[in-house]
């Protein structure tokens, strides 16, 4: 090939590569740096690139003023250094912010490594109650006991004192943060003794519980996340017939054509098996590809809808750049029958987006309802940017946003910690329903949805 031709080819292709690379998720490696230096660079990076600094009113100078001295004081104490990185996640109320370690042992947060043997739950009619009791608790505790105090602190002060930094992901809404704190009330450092003041039949009594190792299966890759209720789902796409003519599809993620085809195939198979009502379970759905989520949403509509405009940090302009626009279009199959969509606080990313579209359909389609105890994770940015930190930690964060048709950020919680998709049918926060949910975490909401919005079995 003549030299001029090769030069022309390279000249033509270089800008192509440059344009594509400049708007991709970022990846930084500070793992070999001293922790204080790594923290400093990480804060610089997040201050300039994290997609929701203004939206969530994050003051990075304030974060630096709090964390830098803690890191300096940590010295060679690995646990103290880990705590600073965890505190960074707590400062970012965003379900797309994720801190993980390849070493499961390192992933355990010492302040919440022990379980008290009780699961607590928030109710509207009785405050925080005991919703589940493990055999290990072995004390005078009964289901439905009302929590009055923890180690002498009243409930609200006890909630405030919980180590929220133990959550390895950002909790984006005030509801989600409170739920996280309620979960943490049932945990403490290994070996700690915790005294709960409980009320039953109008009388208070105290029980003292030991925080024991309840991490369970050593093969479990994410035991701490499972105990805190933020583990990824095991089933990516699963379907089965429930009683009567109700079909059930659990969708754990929306990844590429595979899950799109699996969902389509599952809908067709369930219909052939007699399903005329459907439960679409998006609880714990941890996202995937935007277009795939839009295409799955397209199964439940017969017209086109605007879904989102995606932006991403552009290295060249050092600003958010529009990447693409995604539209929901009618798909090859149309489920024109009742569907109940289940969500929870772990429905995140494109799972959040899918729930958003189905809730939007529900505004005009009485056959669609969104059911859950709480709203979704309120985190719909363009995730995937990473920073490798000392100690084997990796921090993931979003460098892009999802915008609505008017160009405003959609779904992600703002500085008031409000956002996400709220259920059109909220499961009641009563003692009765909370106890039933704790007894059957998977089945209760399915039964509730079938009974309330799908007309019963």
């Amino acid at each position: 090939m003549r030299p001029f031709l090769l030069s022309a080819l390279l000249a033509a292709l270089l800008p192509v590569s440059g344009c594509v690379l400049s708007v991709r998720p970022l990846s930084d490696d500070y793992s070999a740096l001293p922790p204080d230096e790594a923290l400093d660079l990480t804060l610089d990076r997040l201050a300039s690139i994290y997609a929701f600094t203004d939206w969530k009113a994050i003051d990075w100078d304030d974060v630096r003023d709090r964390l830098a001295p803690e890191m300096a004081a940590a010295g060679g104490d690995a646990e103290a250094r880990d705590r600073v990185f965890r505190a960074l996640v707590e400062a970012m109320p965003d379900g797309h912010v994720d801190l993980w370690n390849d070493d499961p042992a390192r992933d355990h947060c010492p302040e919440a490594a022990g379980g008290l043997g009780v699961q607590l739950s928030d109710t509207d009619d009785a405050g925080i109650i005991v919703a589940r009791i493990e055999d290990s608790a072995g004390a005078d505790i009964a289901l439905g006991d009302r929590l009055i105090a923890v180690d002498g602190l009243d409930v609200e002060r006890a909630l405030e004192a919980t180590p929220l930094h133990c959550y390895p992901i950002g909790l984006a809404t005030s509801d989600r943060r409170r739920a996280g704190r309620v979960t943490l009330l049932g945990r403490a450092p290994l070996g700690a003794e915790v005294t709960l003041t409980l009320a039953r039949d109008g009388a208070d009594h105290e029980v003292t519980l030991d925080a024991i190792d309840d991490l369970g299966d050593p093969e479990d890759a994410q035991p701490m996340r499972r105990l805190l209720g933020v583990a990824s789902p095991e089933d990516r796409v699963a379907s089965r017939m429930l009683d009567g003519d109700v079909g059930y599809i659990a969708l754990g993620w929306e990844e590429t054509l595979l899950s799109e085809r699996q969902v389509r195939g599952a809908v067709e198979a369930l219909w052939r098996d007699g399903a005329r009502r459907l439960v679409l379970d998006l609880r714990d759905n941890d996202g995937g590809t935007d277009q795939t989520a839009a295409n799955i949403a397209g199964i439940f509509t017969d017209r086109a809808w605007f879904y989102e405009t995606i932006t991403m940090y552009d290295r060249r302009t050092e600003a958010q750049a529009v990447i693409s626009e995604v539209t929901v279009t009618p798909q090859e199959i149309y489920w024109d029958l009742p569907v109940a969509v289940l969500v929870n606080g772990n429905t995140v990313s494109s799972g959040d987006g899918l729930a958003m579209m189905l809730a939007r359909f529900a505004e005009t389609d009485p056959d669609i309802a969104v059911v859950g105890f709480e709203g979704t994770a309120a985190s719909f940015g363009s995730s995937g940017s990473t920073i490798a930190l000392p100690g084997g930690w990796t921090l993931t964060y979003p460098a892009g946003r999802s915008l609505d048709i008017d160009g405003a950020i959609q779904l992600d919680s703002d500085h008031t910690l409000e956002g996400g998709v709220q259920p059109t049918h909220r499961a009641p926060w009563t003692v009765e329903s909370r106890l039933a949910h704790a007894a059957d975490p998977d089945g209760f909401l399915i039964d509730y949805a079938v009974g309330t919005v799908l007309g019963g079995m």
Partner: protein
Amino acid sequence: MPAVLILLTTALTAPARADPSWAGLRGTAETLDAGEAVIRLPTGRSSLGVSDRAEVWVVPFELVLGGTRVGLERQLIDGDGLSWSVSPSVAEKWSLYKTSLQLASALSWERSVHRVNLLAAAELRLLRQASFAEEVTHTLSVDRVHVPLTVSYDHTRGDTVLRAQLMAPLLDEGEPLTFGVLSGAVIHRFGRFHLDAGAGLLVGRPSEHLFLGTYEHLLVAAYPRVDLWLSL
């Protein structure tokens, strides 16, 4: 990756035998003569001349549709530097739920080393939707109406054609000029092989686009491409 592709296509062209023909150069109104064939790799349409003024062609996998397209191109005018052809085609998504009907018309005008090509196409995309209610019903609806217009200029320098091209829709889902693709290419002839390399920039928002992974590719870069010309 681009460098690898360049090396690969360079290697492919090495054993080619010299041949003077520009046969089957895409985007013109010129058709292959009877018995000539062109295979275009890795994407593109492969054609077989069935008469001196007609060719049949196939695109094994059209990315946006997700299926195979077959068509016929018939040259209606060929003389005084002016040529005109029409090309009806039909495509079917591999899942059989979408059908695309397209009629393209190419007009080329050539003087010495200059050639201007105008390619107009009208595509009607039909969706066969299975609606799951108490009974399954199948409805046929229009999925997309797309009328792209492409203007290109070719400048021939010996065995090389330099091409500048602009594509924009006259209509895309009811909206005109919603996007444009400006591209440049170098097409070099190595005997039986045409090496077609270049880059394009997409500006605007097509109603339907490829979504590769998490982020859409902003740029149309289906290059480089190799044409192998055969005489059967």
